[in-house]
Structures are given as structure tokens and as C-alpha cells.
């Protein structure tokens, strides 16, 4: 394997042995970006000089005999909704084209303390609303496994970058599947931790009762290492949980004998692509072979999670995105005839010109379901459905240690195929959305291939039982070859995209 194909853990070991430096690793990753990102388009902003400087500093500290954390000197990319002081943070929106945050997100502060090396900011669906990264206001990102296909979304840039070796790991966010589904589409590991485990301070909010920072890594051990670095209470996030954070690598025992795994049968229904179903069934056989007890179970309200989510998430988004008013930061519309807008016109034109079509649709839906006369029929009703979903998970976790589903019912779409059909896209998240509605932790990991495209499997656990899913995911991974496969990238010489 090439340097850019290696994991955080492997590169950390090499640096500790002195066989490679952080600067060398960073140079390799930057070269990879230069070579392939014209085709993949994962990056909105590349921070080459800062990355090399940060890497050099880590090398110096190591040379001085300092004992450094595992992430020191390892290049990472950040989804472009995670604020980086002095580095443009756009949410892939014209609204924030020129936005330079005056502070770092808490996760960025934590990574900086670890000596992390930021190679840049990664593309996404605008304000994290979408499942293909085609709603980026700048350009779509391409799937490294097949450049004609989407990388998933909304963390499509982070997933594509990690899969292509343009970053060793990345952080994204996950409101309804936005870290897990792109991880599945790009053949890597994506984790959405329990609501409240990781601080969202400085992460541009979408739906505050659902949002969580997510990790994108090449394997489960890397996922545990990244969680170790960024989990923990933060007074700057009111929903941050004050819980003890274990060393997540201690769960990677390789042993899952007797673990009870439930498969909600309602999530293997009509929408599931038979090619995905086939790979998924073989993965279940593998889990049984490893000693787990795999059983079918029932989750009758699974289907109602999608419509309820598409009330709650837009409602919260319409409120959160009210901050984009052209006054304190971001885009402001100016009339081109030299006259001046009045205040209401300025608000309306700024938002009308600054936001893209999917963001507008969701703001409209959110505004409507919260408007007088609609609140009870839509918003309050959706919150009650949310209680039913939580109760069902609670009931299931009395009988099962973890639940397992495919991460997405579909293989990666062809670019342009689904972008005009919002309902079809909303359904594509139907296995990941219920997890956010209940605030549970879940991981997506590669579980096979269909027609050369990666298929992901999702493991779900009770709140704050990240260790449990890491344990099962790790055991599966150690006994299957999928996490070691890398996309066969070739430069599209002379072509334009």
C-alpha cells in the first residue's frame, strides 16, 4: 500500500519508529490532492502552507523527545461547516462564500491540541441538506469508486477525500445520516456518536436536536482513536453530555461471541436494492460465524421516522438559518441600479440570492409547519412520533446488544439521477434517520461490494454505548477484507469535469 492508503494508526506507528515524518506524510497527501482532486472535487479550500507548517512543528516536537498523541502529524480534512479560525468556512453556500470565522469550533481546538494537520475544508450539500453533495452551491463531488456516481451526502467531500487518500481521516456532521451514508457509498467507516457526546460549538447548526459531529476513517481502530480525541463535555454546547469518556480502543477485543444482534425486518422491505440485500445477508452470515446471535426483530414505526424527520429538521433549520440576514456576516444583496433596498427587501433579496434551492425548500417547509394553525398538526405530532421511535428502540435494546441494518437501501446513485426528486432522496435515508430521531450512536462500515461499488452496514447501540458498536464492527472488520480495499483511481487525462 502507498502512504496515502495507510491508516492513522499505521502512520502513527511509523512516525514513532522514525521511518517517516509528518512532513513527508503531509506532502504525499497534498500531492494526492493535486493529482486527483480535479476529478473528485472533494475540497473547497486546500490549506497547503498551513498544513506543511503544522506538520513541521510536530516533527520538531517529536525530535525534541515529546510524547505526542496518536493524531499528531496526521493530515485530516474538515467538512466545510466546521468553523476554522482564519480559514474560509462556506457550508458550500453562496451565503457564506467569503465567511472567515473569528474562532475555532471546539473539535478543531481539540484536534489542534493533538497536533493535527489540517489539509483543508471539504465539500458538502449546502448547509448539510442533501444526500448526494450535488446541492453544493459550488460543484458536485465525485465518488472515487466511480467518478460518474455521487459520493453520498451531505458529508460527501469528507468521505470521498478519505476514500481517495486525499486525507487520512476527516470530520463531518450527521443530522439524518450525513456521515454514515457517504461512508457507505465511499467504502469507509463513518460514525455518528450519541447526541451530546461531541461538542457542536462552532459547527454551523442545521437541526439542533438532531445534529452531531461525525467521523470518517478508513477503519474502526481509527474511528476509536478520533473519538478519543474529540469526545467530551463542552460548556459551550448546551446539549453536551457530562459523561465519562472511556478509551474507545479498549473495546477492540475481536471477540463478539454471544452478542445478540437484531435485524429490524421492516428495514429490509421494498425499497432495498436486491444487490445491497444480497451483500447484507452475507454480512449477517459472517457475524453469526463469528459467534454472534443474529435474530430478526420488529420495528413497526421505522417508516414513520422519515416524514417526522422532514417536519422536525426543517422546522429547526428554518429557525437556525434565520441568522443569515445579511447584517453581521455572510452575503448581503445590493441592488444593481445604485438605489438602496429597504430593510425587508434587503432581508428577502439576501436570503433569496444567498440560499440554493434545497435549502429554500426546507426553510419554507419549516416555516410552514411552525406557522400558526399548523404547529399541532405537524410539529407537535412529529415530536410525538419521535417518542414512539425512541420507545421502540428502548424495547429492542432490552433484547439485543446492537441492531444492524444496511446503511443505505441503495448503491451510490449516478450523478444527476436523483437530484430533482426530493422524495426519492428523502427515502434514501430511511435506515439512518430513525437513529438521529432517538439520538443513538451508529456506525457504518464496509460489508462488501456489488458491481464494484461499496456497500455499508449500519450498527446501532443504546445511548453512550459507542464501545459496543466499535467492538462488533472491529470484529467484523478483522475477519473481512473490505476495509483494506481502495478505489482504483486513474487520472482522467485530458478530460474536463
Amino acid at each position, binding site marked *: 500500500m502507498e502512504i496515502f492508503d495507510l491508516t492513522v494508526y499505521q502512520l502513527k506507528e511509523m512516525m514513532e519508529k522514525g521511518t517517516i515524518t509528518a512532513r513527508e506524510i503531509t506532502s504525499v497527501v497534498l500531492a494526492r490532492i493535486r493529482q486527483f482532486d480535479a476529478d473528485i472535487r472533494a475540497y473547497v479550500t486546500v490549506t497547503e502552507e498551513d498544513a506543511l507548517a503544522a506538520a513541521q512543528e510536530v516533527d520538531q516536537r517529536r525530535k525534541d523527545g515529546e510524547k505526542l498523541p496518536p493524531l499528531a502529524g496526521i493530515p485530516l480534512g474538515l467538512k466545510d461547516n466546521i468553523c476554522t479560525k482564519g480559514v474560509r468556512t462556506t457550508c458550500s453556500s453562496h451565503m457564506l462564500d467569503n465567511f472567515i470565522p473569528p474562532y475555532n469550533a471546539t473539535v478543531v481546538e481539540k484536534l489542534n491540541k493533538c497536533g493535527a494537520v489540517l489539509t483543508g475544508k471539504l465539500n458538502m450539500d449546502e448547509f448539510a441538506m442533501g444526500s448526494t453533495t450535488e446541492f453544493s452551491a459550488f460543484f458536485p463531488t465525485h465518488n472515487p469508486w466511480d467518478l460518474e456516481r455521487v459520493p453520498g451526502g451531505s458529508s460527501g467531500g469528507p468521505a470521498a477525500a478519505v476514500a481517495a487518500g486525499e486525507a487520512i481521516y476527516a470530520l463531518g456532521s450527521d443530522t439524518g445520516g450525513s456521515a454514515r451514508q457517504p461512508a457507505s457509498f465511499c467504502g469507509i467507516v463513518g460514525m455518528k456518536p450519541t447526541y451530546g457526546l461531541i461538542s457542536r460549538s462552532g459547527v454551523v447548526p442545521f437541526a439542533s436536536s438532531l445534529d452531531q459531529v461525525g467521523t470518517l476513517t478508513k477503519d474502526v481502530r481509527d474511528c476509536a482513536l478520533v473519538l478519543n480525541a474529540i469526545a467530551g463535555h463542552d460548556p459551550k454546547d448546551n446539549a453536551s453530555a457530562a459523561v465519562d469518556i472511556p478509551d474507545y480502543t479498549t473495546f477492540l477485543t475481536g471477540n463478539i461471541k454471544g452478542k445478540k444482534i437484531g435485524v429490524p425486518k421492516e428495514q429490509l422491505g421494498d425499497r432495498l436494492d436486491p444487490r445491497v440485500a444480497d451483500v447484507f445477508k452475507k454480512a449477517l452470515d459472517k457475524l453469526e460465524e463469528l459467534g454472534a446471535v443474529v435474530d430478526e426483530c420488529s420495528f413497526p414505526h421505522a417508516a*414513520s421516522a422519515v416524514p417526522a424527520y422532514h417536519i422536525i429538521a426543517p422546522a429547526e433549520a428554518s429557525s437556525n438559518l434565520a441568522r443569515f440576514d445579511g447584517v453581521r456576516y455572510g452575503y448581503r444583496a445590493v441592488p444593481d441600479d445604485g438605489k438602496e433596498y429597504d*430593510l425587508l427587501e434587503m432581508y428577502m433579496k439576501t436570503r433569496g440570492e444567498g440560499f440554493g434551492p434545497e435549502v429554500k425548500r426546507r426553510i419554507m417547509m419549516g416555516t410552514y409547519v411552525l406557522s400558526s394553525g399548523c404547529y399541532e398538526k*405537524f410539529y407537535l405530532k412529529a415530536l410525538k412520533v419521535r417518542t414512539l421511535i425512541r420507545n421502540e428502540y428502548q424495547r429492542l435494546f432490552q433484547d439485543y446488544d446492537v441492531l444492524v441494518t444496511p446503511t443505505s437501501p441503495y448503491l451510490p446513485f449516478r450523478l444527476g439521477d436523483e437530484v430533482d426528486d426530493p422524495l426519492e432522496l428523502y427515502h434514501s435515508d430511511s435506515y439512518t434517520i430513525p437513529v438521529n430521531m432517538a439520538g443513538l450512536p451508529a456506525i457504518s462500515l464496509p460489508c462488501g461490494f456489488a458491481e464494484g461499488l461499496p456497500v455499508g452496514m449500519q450498527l446501532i447501540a443504546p445511548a453512550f454505548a459507542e464501545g459496543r458498536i466499535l467492538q462488533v464492527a472491529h470484529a467484523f472488520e478483522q475477519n473481512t477484507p473490505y476495509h483494506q480495499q481502495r478505489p482504483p483511481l486513474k487520472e482522467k487525462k485530458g478530460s474536463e469535469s
Partner: protein
Amino acid sequence: MKLTREEVRQVAVLARLALNEEEFNELYGKFNEVLEFVETINNIDTENVEPTYYLMPVQNVWRSDEAHQPLAPEDVFLDAPERDGSFFKVPRIL
């Protein structure tokens, strides 16, 4: 239930979104399509079910009243579209 064009135009005003005609037409159809879909939750029986507003059992997160270092004024105004000294400048209101 479908909203009329006038009703959807009113929602756009509430949401402070100026939409051109082409954009409005595109959005109008999709808005009603999604609305009909999300309305299906009204078929679910939620009699005697409490709503879940928050996932975490936390209420009233307090902190001690200690001074912290705020952002420097220059940082606060770093991204302002228009400023006048230590004020954000907006179009005429009155």
C-alpha cells in the same frame, strides 16, 4: 392537503425569501409533494403519547457568573457586510 399558490407565496414572505417566478414555480410543485408526504404522520395513533422536545434529560444549564475573554471587536466585525464604527450598518428602517 395542497396549498394554493397564494398561500405558498405568503410562506415565502414569512421565511424572508425573495423567489423569482421560475424558482417559485419549481418550488411550488415540490413543496406540495413533500407536504403531502409529511402529512402521512397524521395516520399514526399518538393518543396519550408525550412529545420528545429534547433527547437529553438536561434542563436549565447554568454556569457560574465569571468573566471570560470575549471576541475582540475587530474579530466581531471581521465578516460584517457593512459597519459604522462599532455598529453593524443596515438599510433605513424608518
